[in-house]
C-alpha cells in the first residue's frame, strides 16, 4: 500500500514520514502532495499566535480536551525556532500537551522554522494537508513565540487567536500594525498573574479598527493552567468557524 493510502487510513507513521519528506526534500514530496490534495477536503484550521511564554501550548492542550469530548480528531503543528548559528532547535511545545500523546485521535508534530521568517516553517502549510489526510477534523497551528510582525499564520489559518498576557506594554504598543491586526479572537491568558484591565482597555481601543465583514474580534480572559475561560474560548472559536463558512483551501505561499 502506498504512503498516501496509509495516511488516508489514519496511519500516524505514514503521515509523520510524509511531513519529514516535505521538510527535507520539498521538491520530491510535491508528487505525493498532489495526489493527497485530490483526496482531501480542507478542515477548519486554527492559528494560535502570540509572544513567547504567554501560554499558547497550554491553551492548545486545553482546547484539545474540548475537541476530544466531541470526538473530533485533532492535528497540531507546533513551530519553534531553529538556531541561526547551528540550525539546531529545541522543540518543547509538546511538553504542555503530552497528556494527549497516548490518545490515537491526537497527532502532534513539532516543527523547526529552519530559517523561515514569519512565525511558521516553510513546510507548515503542506503539513496541514497531511494532517487533514490523516483524518484531523481540526488542525491547530501554533506559531513560534512572535513579536509584532510575524503574520504568516494568516495564510494558513481560518481562525486566528492572538494570545497575550498581562504586562505587555502600553496603548502605543496596541496601536502598532502587525499581529494585533490579524486576531479574530484575543485571549488574555494568566489573568491571575497581574492586572488585566489596562491591557483589556487597550485591546478594546484597537478592536473597532479590526471589525471586518461583520465579525467583531472577541476578547476572552483565561487561566489556561487551571482551565478557566476555556469553554468560552472554545465556544468563540466555534462561532468564528461558523462565521467563516467553508474552510479555506490552504494554498497560499506554500506552492514552491
Amino acid at each position, binding site marked *: 500500500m502506498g504512503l498516501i493510502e496509509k495516511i488516508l487510513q489514519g496511519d500516524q507513521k505514514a503521515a509523520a514520514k510524509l511531513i519529514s519528506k516535505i521538510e*527535507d526534500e520539498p521538491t520530491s514530496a510535491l508528487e505525493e502532495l498532489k495526489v493527497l490534495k485530490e483526496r482531501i477536503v480542507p478542515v477548519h484550521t486554527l492559528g494560535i499566535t502570540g509572544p513567547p511564554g504567554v501560554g499558547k501550548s497550554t491553551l492548545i492542550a486545553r482546547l484539545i480536551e474540548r475537541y476530544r469530548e466531541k470526538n473530533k480528531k485533532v492535528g497540531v503543528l507546533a513551530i519553534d525556532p531553529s538556531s541561526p548559528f547551528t540550525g539546531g532547535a529545541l522543540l518543547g511545545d509538546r*511538553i504542555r500537551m503530552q497528556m494527549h500523546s497516548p490518545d490515537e485521535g491526537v497527532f502532534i508534530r513539532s516543527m523547526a522554522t*529552519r530559517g523561515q521568517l514569519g512565525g511558521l516553517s516553510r513546510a507548515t502549510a503542506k503539513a496541514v494537508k497531511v494532517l487533514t489526510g490523516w483524518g484531523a477534523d481540526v488542525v491547530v497551528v501554533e506559531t513560534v513565540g512572535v513579536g509584532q510582525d510575524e503574520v504568516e499564520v494568516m495564510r494558513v489559518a481560518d481562525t486566528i487567536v492572538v494570545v497575550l498576557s498581562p504586562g505587555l506594554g502600553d496603548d502605543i504598543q496596541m496601536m502598532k500594525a502587525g499581529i494585533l491586526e490579524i486576531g479574530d479572537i484575543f485571549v488574555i491568558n494568566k489573568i491571575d498573574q497581574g492586572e488585566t484591565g489596562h491591557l483589556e482597555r487597550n485591546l478594546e481601543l484597537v478592536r473597532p479598527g479590526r471589525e471586518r465583514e461583520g465579525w467583531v474580534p472577541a476578547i476572552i480572559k483565561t487561566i489556561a493552567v487551571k482551565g478557566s475561560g476555556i469553554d468560552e474560548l472554545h465556544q468563540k472559536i466555534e462561532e468564528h468557524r461558523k462565521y467563516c463558512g467553508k474552510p479555506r483551501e490552504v494554498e497560499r505561499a506554500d506552492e514552491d
Partner: protein
Amino acid sequence: MRKKIRVLIAKPGLDGHDRGAKVVARALRDAGMEVIYTGIRQTAEQIVNTAIQEDVDCLGLSILSGAHLKLFPKIVKLLKKRGGKNILIFGGGIIPSEDIPELKSMGVSKIFGPGTKTQGIIDFIKTQIDADGKRR
C-alpha cells in the same frame, strides 16, 4: 541539503531528575540537531507515540530511578510494534554497568553514564546515523 537529525529526549517513569536530560538536549541542539523534549514522568505509550509522530531518528532515554530494566524493554518492545524498529535508542543516567549487557541485548545501542562528555554523545549519534544509513 543534508537531512536534519531529529532526536527525542525522554524521561520515562517516576523520576523527576531532568538536569542531565536537559543538558544533553541543549548540547544536541547546539550540534545542529532538532531535539524534541517531552518533560518528565512519561509513560512508554507517551514516549513511543511521540517518537512516531515526530519521526525521530534517535531516542535518548534518561533514567535515574533504577527502573531501567523494567522501563527500557517496555519502550523498545512497543516501539518495534509501532514500526519504529529503525530508531536508534540510547540511554543515560544512573545505570549499573552489570545491567548494560542486558539492555544492549534488547536493542539499546549505548548507555552513557555519569561523567560522559556531551561531545561523546554527539559523535555517537552522528557516526551511527551515517554508518547504518537506515534512518527513514
